[in-house]
Structure formats: structure tokens, C-alpha cells
């Protein structure tokens, strides 16, 4: 806790900050750090053994097969992050820009674009699983209908398409969020600034790159950070669509699944090991916190007060 002089102002700030801080401390930080402590013990299933220092970390990072599993899951997370950055945020920006123009029907489009966001991941996962169904899925049926039958794929069954299929589902689900955040950012740009640009150029490209984009950067900070954190904590969608193992053969495995499976076991194939699971969780946490911290501070630095 910082040193606060207990003046009226200090008291007021304290009163504001302590209850939320207490909640987070009690219900997140304390339990998580208790769980992190597991990482330093040897576990046999649910039984805690002796203190083993960093051995669990060593195991998940350097001992086969964990090493390849860790690397594979991490690689997939990186793919997911960059893919979503383009698909979700890129598309979100374009959609926001289109919505911002207040073309006829914009109100309806705005509602529609955000609708999937309010759906649960379970629904989205089931829906897309059905869509990707190799026999009856609408994706393959549509392709066949268009005479592109040779493009039909067992989307979720192939190593090279499964992850991307899930990423597309994720982008569909969440694209509304960056869209509206960007839209809000765009609408906070004073109208006269836009007028000023229009006096100087008609080029949408210049307008977007030189004015709109820099001015919505504050929104972008939020979107980027949340996406980063979300991408590396990704769990529900691959869990339902690919299974806890990251089926097929680990091509949809991500750190979230991997850590959960390691800690709690997979009913149909694996064992429980809290030690290794926690070690993974600690590593994931450190990684995310570090990068998210960097993103936030770097991006925040170039925020602009309009």
C-alpha cells in the first residue's frame, strides 16, 4: 500500500481504492498465488509431495515430451494472437469505419455486429462445430453447392486447418467488440477535425492513416491488450471445438488447454499433476503480465488527448 497522508483527500482516495483492491486481493491474487506455490512441490496426483524448487519449471520447459508440448502450445498461441490481430481487430477497424459513416441501415448493422459477442462461447463453439461438420456442415455443403466440392475439407480434423477454423469462429464471435470500441473512439474525434482534413484531402487512405488511426489509438490500446491477454488465455473455444487434447494431434493445443489438462487431467487420456500444471500457469502468467505491461505502457505513452 502506498503511503497516504490521511487528509480528507487521502481518505477519499483510500475509500475509493481499498474495497476493489480488497476484492481482487482476496479472490484473485491470494488464491492464485497459493496455487502458484503448488509449482514448487512434487505432486503425485492429488497428493502433495516434497518441495522441489524449480524442478517443475525445468520439466515443462526442457524435458521431453513436455518441452515439445509447451513449445507447440505456445506456437499456437502466437499464431492465434497474430491471426486474431488481423482478423478480429483489422476487420473491427474496417467495420467501425464503415459504421461510423452512418450509411443507411447503420443502426441495424451496429446492433448485428455486436450480437455474437453476447452469445456464450459454448453456443459459438457448437454452432461452428456444426458448420465445419465434414458431412453435413454448411461450409462443405456450400462449397459443394458452388461447384467447389474439391475444396470441401474435414476442417476440424486436419492439422493445417483445425486451428484456423477455430480462429475464424473466435473472430466471428468477438469482432463486434473491437468494432464498437473503435467506433466509440472514432466518434470521439471532434467533427471539425474531420472537416479540417476533408478540406485538405478526399483520400480515405490519408484520412484513415494520418488522422483517424492516430486518434483512435487510445481505444486501440485497450483492444490490443485485451486481445493479447485473451489470446494467451484462450480456453473455451478450442476446448469445445478441439477438445482438451488440442485435437487433432495437438494442432489446436494452446497454453490454456495444456495447463488445465496437465493440472486437472484429461478424463479420457491423462493424469493430474498440479505441480507441472501450476508451473505452466506461472510461466503463462509471467509472460502475459510482462508483455501486457509493455504493451500498455508503450501504447499508453502515445495516447492523445483530443
Amino acid at each position, binding site marked *: 500500500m502506498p503511503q497516504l497522508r490521511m487528509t480528507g483527500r487521502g481518505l477519499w482516495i483510500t475509500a475509493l481504492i481499498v474495497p476493489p483492491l480488497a476484492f481482487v486481493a482476496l479472490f484473485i491474487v491470494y488464491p492464485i498465488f497459493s496455487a502458484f506455490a503448488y509449482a514448487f512441490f512434487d505432486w*503425485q*496426483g*492429488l*497428493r*502433495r509431495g516434497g518441495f522441489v524448487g524449480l524442478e517443475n519449471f525445468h520439466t515443462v520447459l526442457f524435458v*521431453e*515430451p513436455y518441452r515439445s508440448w509447451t513449445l507447440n502450445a505456445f506456437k499456437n498461441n502466437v499464431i492465434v494472437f497474430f491471426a486474431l490481430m488481423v482478423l478480429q481487430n483489422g476487420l473491427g477497424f474496417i467495420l467501425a469505419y464503415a459504421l461510423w459513416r452512418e450509411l443507411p441501415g447503420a443502426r441495424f448493422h451496429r446492433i448485428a455486429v455486436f450480437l455474437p459477442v453476447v452469445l456464450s462461447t459454448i453456443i459459438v463453439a457448437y454452432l461452428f*462445430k456444426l458448420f*465445419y*461438420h*465434414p*458431412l*453435413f456442415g454448411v461450409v*462443405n455443403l456450400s462449397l459443394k453447392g458452388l461447384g467447389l466440392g474439391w475444396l*470441401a*475439407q*474435414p*476442417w*476440424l*480434423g*486436419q*492439422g493445417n486447418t483445425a486451428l484456423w477454423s477455430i480462429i475464424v469462429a473466435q473472430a466471428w464471435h468477438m469482432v463486434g467488440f473491437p468494432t464498437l470500441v473503435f467506433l466509440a473512439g472514432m466518434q470521439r474525434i471532434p467533427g471539425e477535425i474531420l472537416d479540417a482534413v476533408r478540406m485538405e484531402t478526399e483520400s480515405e487512405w490519408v484520412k484513415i492513416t494520418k488522422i483517424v488511426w492516430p486518434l483512435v489509438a487510445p481505444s486501440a490500446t485497450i483492444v490490443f491488450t485485451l486481445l493479447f491477454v485473451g489470446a494467451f488465455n484462450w480456453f473455451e473455444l478450442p476446448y469445445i471445438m478441439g*477438445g*482438451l*487434447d488440442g*485435437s*487433432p*494431434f*495437438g494442432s489446436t493445443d494452446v497454453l490454456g488447454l495444456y495447463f488445465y489438462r*496437465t493440472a*486437472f*487431467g*484429461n*478424463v*479420457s*487420456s*491423462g*493424469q*493430474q*499433476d498440479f505441480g*507441472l500444471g501450476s508451473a505452466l500457469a506461472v510461466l503463462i502468467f509471467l509472460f502475459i503480465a510482462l508483455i501486457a505491461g509493455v504493451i500498455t505502457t508503450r501504447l499508453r505513452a502515445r495516447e492523445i488527448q483530443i
Partner: protein
Amino acid sequence: QDITFWSWRQEDRAAYEQFIEAFEAANPGINVKFEAFEAANYNTILSTALAGGTGPDVMMVRAYGGLENVAAAGYLEPISPENVPALADFAAPALAAESVRADGKVYAVPFASQTQLVIYNKEIFDANGLEEPQSWDELVAVSQALRDAGIIPFANGTATAWQNETVTFGLGSSLMGEDFYDALMEGSTDFTDERFTGALGEIAAVAADYFPDGFIGLDYPSAQQLFASGMAGMFIGGSYEMATFQGLNPDIEMGVFAAPGKTADDPKLVGLYFDGGYAANAAGANKDAAIQFLNYLASPEFGQAFANTLSNISTVPGVSFDNPLLAEVNELNQSSIPYLMLAHFRYGEPSGSVLIQGEMQKLFAGETTPEAIGEALTTGLAAWYEPFQK
């Protein structure tokens, strides 16, 4: 006394409530509260509750490695013929499945065995004049005939990871043969064995030709649906599927057979394993009542009701099977090898199941060879399975 009873069999809620009613009637003063949880998260919930000291009095636990996870931590009350007399009559492999290897103690009353075999649609077979195949060639011929008739031969898909294991051993047990199993257990061979890898090759070939288009992207419920709706002729799976199929399509007429070996002379083997058991919480408040309940769960009348209502092969000795299909499965069980990975290779990480599920997916997708799988399994398991550590 109130005791709680946790299960992952949400679909069996009604049946269990019936069993409990019977128990409560016979044991006034004990109330059993049944709670069913989503199977996929049951592990997590149970572990959490046990670690938190508020676990249920009686619970369903997995067998083999899954049991050890829980039992080794001391959460389960050991049982023996002393407190559960009926246990004395149970088959040894069933009890072994619910024991911890280190202390040899039994921790749960095994409730069912499951058999991995081939289920087929009798109507379709009859309509096309097909018989249960006796050799691998006949299996292929039957499949081809179905396919020619516009019917999907096998309904199975392998997008759901654990289905790969089911397909492998449901279809391959006879190909691998008892010799291989014995040799493996002795430690005189490993998974690079020709008998094993050869079987994988045959399985992959059949899958490529006779599984649905894009089967590697087909998930488990869809596969079930294909079979239940009569669009496919056969389904490689466990005996537990039959109830589901019946539920999905009450009119379906099913038959079962053990997948054949190379020739008609090879013994036809099914893959057999014990599903799980009922255990009592070592820290439970009402341990007496819990043990009493376990006694009921080990009793022949429960076993019979269990078999009748849930269409499962109860492990309680002396249960008879009215359902002809069940009786047939029970018959097939007489010639079996254990469901390999679950029974023997789930005691460490990476487990045999993890490995074979992933590797078979690769094989089906054409990204590996049977020999490479043998290699991968052997070296992978060597991480903790001593006989493989050269």
C-alpha cells in the same frame, strides 16, 4: 443420516434415483442425495472438493491410473471383504482396476466392465444379405458391400481424440492378438512390435476406405448420430454405446461382434476394461452410512438392476443379462484382452492414451506411419514406464 453421492453419469440420473429409492427403503434412516456432474469436468470438481475437505460421502471414481490419482492422496476409504463382504466374490481383474498398485488395497466397488467391439445395424446387414465377418478380408468385403449399397460402412469419426483409441483397440485387438499382449506385459516386446504396428496399418487402411468422408473431422456425437439414424452400418465403440443408440433410435436393431483377426482362425478378441467404481470418502462425516451404501452397490440385486436398467455389464458376480445384446457382449467378454492403454499405461505422463490418440489422428490424416507410431509410443512411455527404459 444424509449422505451425498457424486457421479459423472448425468444421463443415468433417473436410474440412480430408482436404485437409491430401493436402498433407502431397505435402510430407513439413511438418505442418499445424488449429484451428477458434467463428465468432462468431474475430475476437477471432485479433486477440488476433496482437497477442500468437503467431498461427497460416496462417489464414482475412475479405474486404474485415474483411481490412483485420488486414492494415493488418501482421500478414499480402503475397502475389503471385511467392511464390504460382497467384495470377496468379485473377479480379480475388476478389483485390480480399483486398487492402488503400491499398497494393493481396493478403494472402490467396481461397477461395470466395458467392451470395445463392433456394433452393427442388423436390419442393414439383413437387407444386404451380410453376415458378421470372420476374418479381416471378410470385414473388408462386408464394408465394400455396404459402401456399394450406398451405406456408410463405419460411422466412426476421429475428430474427438479419445475415439482414436476406441477405434484402434475396438478394431485391432484381434489383429494384435493375445501373444502380443502377453509379450508386452512380460516386457519382452514393446510397441515397435510388428504385430502391433501391422494392426495399426490395417486399421488405417480400413478407415481410409470405409469411414465416412472427412471422418478425421467428424466428432463423436455426429458419429453416434450417423449410426443411430441408420446411415451407417457399423460402429466401432464400447458396449456403453448400445444404450445411447437405443435412446436415439428406439427402433434400431443392433448386433455386436468382435472385430476379426487376420484369418478366421485367429481368436476374436474384444478390448475389455473396468469403467470405474464406487468409493467412500475417507474424511466423510457419515462413513458408516457410506459403507452401508457401498455394500448395497456391491450387492447382486443392485448389480441386476444396474444391468437391466442401464444396459451395462455389471461387475457384480452372478448377474444375469435379460437383454440378448448384453448377454452376447457378456459372451464375447470371455475372449478378451484388456483395453490396453487404459488398463496399463495411464499411470504416468505422457500416458499411453495421450500418445496413441494423437498418433492415430496423425496416421489417419496421413501424417505418420505405423512404425513411427510404435517408436513414438515406446520412447514416449519410456519416460515413466520402466520396462521400456533400456
